[in-house]
């Protein structure tokens, strides 16, 4: 395989260069016979200018504005290089095709070593990176363990605070019980005079009723109207007592 490579590499390079040369060589020299004419013309404001016409051998017709009697031929190309240029183009195409066919086998083989070297270098980089990460992980883990050891030593020396927390919880519970007893007593005292209107107006509707009463008060309604319209209560004493209770509660 290596002998094939050494034979084919210069052939491949040679064919490529030849194809490039042939293509650029086909650009030069004229393709077709042509004639150049100059014609003087008179413009719009009596200006005189000369117009150049290029007529090739393959043109189907004279260009627009060309007058054979007025135009004077001043240059001509009488030798063309059609065949040579087309042959050079064909040669360039052929050389590049054959070079591509050879190159399909040659290029991957020749660059095999460089590919292997690049893969090795990349692997080396990744290995060093992994090594650094591993060392950092080890360092952080060891730091955690050292901290835990120190913590254990401190706990043994000063003891845990669980006992103190339990005592604090008990005291908190005692206090909260005492407060609850006081509030229930107060609630029971308040409930007795409220019985008169509680049958008609339960405690749940206190807030909504108070909002409606406030709205009516701001719109300028009297107490009588509020009891009749907002509370829809027939008994004025019960309605009045309820309004007074709400005023005492919210104001």
């Amino acid at each position, binding site marked *: 395989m290596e002998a094939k490579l050494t034979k084919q*590499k210069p052939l491949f390079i040679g064919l490529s260069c030849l194809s490039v040369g042939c293509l650029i060589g086909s650009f030069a020299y004229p393709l077709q016979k042509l004639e150049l004419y100059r014609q003087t013309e008179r413009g719009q404001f009596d200006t005189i200018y000369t117009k*150049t016409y290029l007529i090739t051998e393959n043109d189907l017709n004279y260009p627009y504005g060309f007058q054979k009697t007025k135009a004077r031929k001043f240059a001509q190309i009488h030798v063309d290089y059609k065949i040579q240029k087309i042959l050079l*183009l064909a040669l360039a195409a052929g050389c590049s095709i054959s*070079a591509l066919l050879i190159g399909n086998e040659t290029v991957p083989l020749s*660059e095999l070593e460089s590919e292997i070297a690049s893969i090795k270098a990349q692997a080396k980089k990744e290995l060093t990176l992994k090594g650094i990460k591993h060392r950092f992980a080890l360092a952080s883990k060891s730091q955690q363990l050292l901290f835990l050891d120190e913590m254990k030593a401190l706990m043994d020396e000063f003891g845990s605070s669980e006992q103190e927390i339990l005592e604090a919880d008990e005291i908190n519970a005692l206090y909260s019980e005492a407060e609850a007893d006081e509030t229930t007593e107060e609630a029971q005292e308040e409930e007795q005079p409220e019985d008169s209107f509680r049958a008609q107006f339960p405690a749940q509707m206190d807030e909504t009723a108070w909002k409606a009463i406030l709205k009516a008060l701001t719109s300028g309604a009297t107490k009588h109207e509020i009891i009749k319209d907002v509370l829809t209560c027939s008994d004025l004493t019960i309605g009045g007592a309820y309004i007074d209770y709400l005023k005492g509660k919210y104001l």
Partner: protein
Amino acid sequence: MLRHLKNTNELILYASLSCGAAFLGRILPPFYFPILFLRLGIFIYCFFIIVKAEGNTELGIILGAAIFLGILGGYWDLIEIHLRYNLAQVASTITAVLVFVASTLVILYQLRGNGSKTN
């Protein structure tokens, strides 16, 4: 290095085909416009579909450069004659085209709002 030569060979192959098409368009004038539109179509296809949609920039660049080389080489001798004998008209045409392209770009740029302008 050899990989680059391989790319060059592809380029030369496509460029020689394009140059041959240009010669054909000059020798047989009825083929001039069909070849021109085919070339433009391949160029547009090359840019929008191969480069943008498929993402194959390598092939797109090779095809685009090959078409450009083909146009350049196919009309090289004609360009030489025009530059030698008809320079005034060539210069005025180039100036007009450049002015038109520049004004179009400026208008498009203004319409798009000066790039991404944040107020």
